[in-house]
């Protein structure tokens, strides 16, 4: 597995063009080439972001740049983040809820090095959170930016592979096909089995793929105080949800949307309202359920909340 992304320093050796973070010292007062991307590119991306915010849920094409990491590792999110960062931002990066995976750590350190910004693991301290496949449990606030890494931005692609046709369907709000997918789910499984990348309608207009977040997170997108930005690098699309937008998960009248949460509480912090990951403990296949949002879990734990296996947490911390 090549889970490790190519770090900026590793990339520098064969990148002698304009993007050279090493030549840019970490002085945030010099804004030239701040945060890796050249100003030209950032302006282009910001324009796309503004357009995306003006047309909630609409996929705006942009000229995605080569980034020092392979497509599929968040190049879209990284470009959006780079275009948004200012020197006094505080950045948090999560990968499926965790701050400490290799990818999260690499991207965080990438921005620390190329923009000299502060970083954090605390959701409420961050001004910009880049995420892969989760929305933090802690409610986001005004002024925060949530940047999603998106692999496939087109929700209709599953049933209609022709781009010319899907574009037309968006333009004319012809979204019946989205429900065909849900119909198929119910007819095969007895319920809507789609658990990730569950399609939503934004402000009653565009249907949007929320990236592969669990549908448990879908309701958090609606009426959210933070700005939500979505970047798809390989597919060269940017879309957005402005603060306090109405975001509705598609469903049927007789099969209403259900967030679906595994029953039970976090084994470490006792939370019964968070999205849980199943963790296999030993070779015997012993399982336990813990918060997927590591910051949420540890913060609760620090505040004295306990789960039925909190001792494990303590020993880990110690």
């Amino acid at each position, binding site marked *: 597995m090549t889970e490790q992304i190519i770090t900026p320093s590793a990339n520098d050796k064969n990148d002698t063009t304009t993007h050279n973070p090493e030549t840019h010292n970490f002085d945030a007062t010099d804004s030239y080439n701040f945060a890796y991307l050249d100003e030209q590119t950032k302006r282009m991306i910001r324009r796309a972001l503004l357009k995306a915010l003006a047309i909630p849920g609409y996929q705006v094409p942009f000229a995605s740049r080569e980034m020092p990491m392979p497509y599929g590792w968040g190049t879209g999110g990284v470009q959006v983040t780079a275009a948004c960062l200012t020197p006094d931002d505080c950045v948090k990066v999560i990968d499926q809820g965790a701050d400490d995976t290799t990818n999260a750590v690499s991207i965080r350190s990438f921005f620390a090095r190329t923009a000299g910004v502060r970083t954090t693991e605390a959701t409420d301290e961050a001004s910009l959170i880049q995420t892969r496949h989760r929305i933090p449990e802690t409610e986001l606030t005004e002024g925060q930016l949530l940047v999603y890494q998106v692999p496939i931005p087109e929700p209709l692609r599953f049933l209609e592979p022709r781009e010319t046709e899907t574009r037309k369907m968006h333009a*004319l709000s012809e979204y*019946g*096909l989205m429900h*065909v997918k849900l*119909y198929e789910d119910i*007819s*095969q499984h007895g319920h809507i089995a789609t658990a990730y990348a569950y399609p939503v309608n934004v402000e009653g207009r565009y249907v949007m793929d929320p990236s592969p977040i669990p549908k448990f997170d879908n309701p958090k997108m609606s009426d959210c105080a933070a700005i939500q930005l979505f970047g798809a690098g390989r597919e060269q699309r940017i879309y957005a949800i402005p603060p306090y937008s109405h975001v509705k998960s598609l469903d049927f*009248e007789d099969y209403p949307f259900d967030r679906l949460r595994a029953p039970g509480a976090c084994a470490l912090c006792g939370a019964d309202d968070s999205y849980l990951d199943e963790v296999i403990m030993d070779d015997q296949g012993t399982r336990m359920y813990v918060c997927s949002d590591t910051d949420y879990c540890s913060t609760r734990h620090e505040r004295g909340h306990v789960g039925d296996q909190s001792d494990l947490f303590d020993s880990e911390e110690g």
Partner: protein
Amino acid sequence: MRKTPLFSVSGLRKSYGAQLGCRDVSFDLHPGEIMGIVGESGSGKSTLLSCLAGHLAPDHGDVCFDVDGTGLVSTLAMPEPERRLLARTQWAYVHQNPRDGLRMSVSAGGNIGERLMNIGARHYGNIRQDACSWMDRVELSVGRIDDRPATFSGGMQQRLQIARNLVTSPRLVFMDEPTGGLDVSVQARLLDLLRSLVQDLGLSVIIVTHDLAVVRMLAHRMMVMQRGEIVETGLADQVLDDPQHPYTQLLVSSVLQV
């Protein structure tokens, strides 16, 4: 019987570069009327039908439809969203190859339900029920509703395509060789089904075929095409029994008994 046409075509022409598709096509279609279009391969039947249904833009001429009972309006001058809405609601198009008219990766029920969902149906139970009753209506076993059309025979696929098209009660149906590529016995069953559906639902139909028996069985009127032009038009039984144009006579005499 209403005295105003439902659909009207005037001076239609379509070329593919130097290659003529069809030209000088004009006719009216009234509610409940079935028009057969016959002609040899390459005579421009499919081209004409595609122009009529809005899949191809003609070079010249107009295609008008009475959208809401208040008179003919040009479908070519209509904004695209309106035309597409028309195609999803009041019109239907049955392709010769069911693969072109079905979503092969979606179950039979999903195929039928799609048009309903396209016009806003959001109650799974109702959609399912409509799909079941249409499965039954086109003589497909309801037990196959969750199977993909790829597992169906050609005749079954064609019946599914018809169900998918008719579920939203369109007023005008375009059919391009709906019985082509099927066994004779399967064809007969499909034709019979089509005929009773058309009669029960009072549909207007424009059907392209080179099978004169299909025209004899279904059509009130017919047009004969040769090299992109209409060479003869009239009452279907009259054109078949007393053809006037040499090409029509050849066509009729080369078929034994219609």
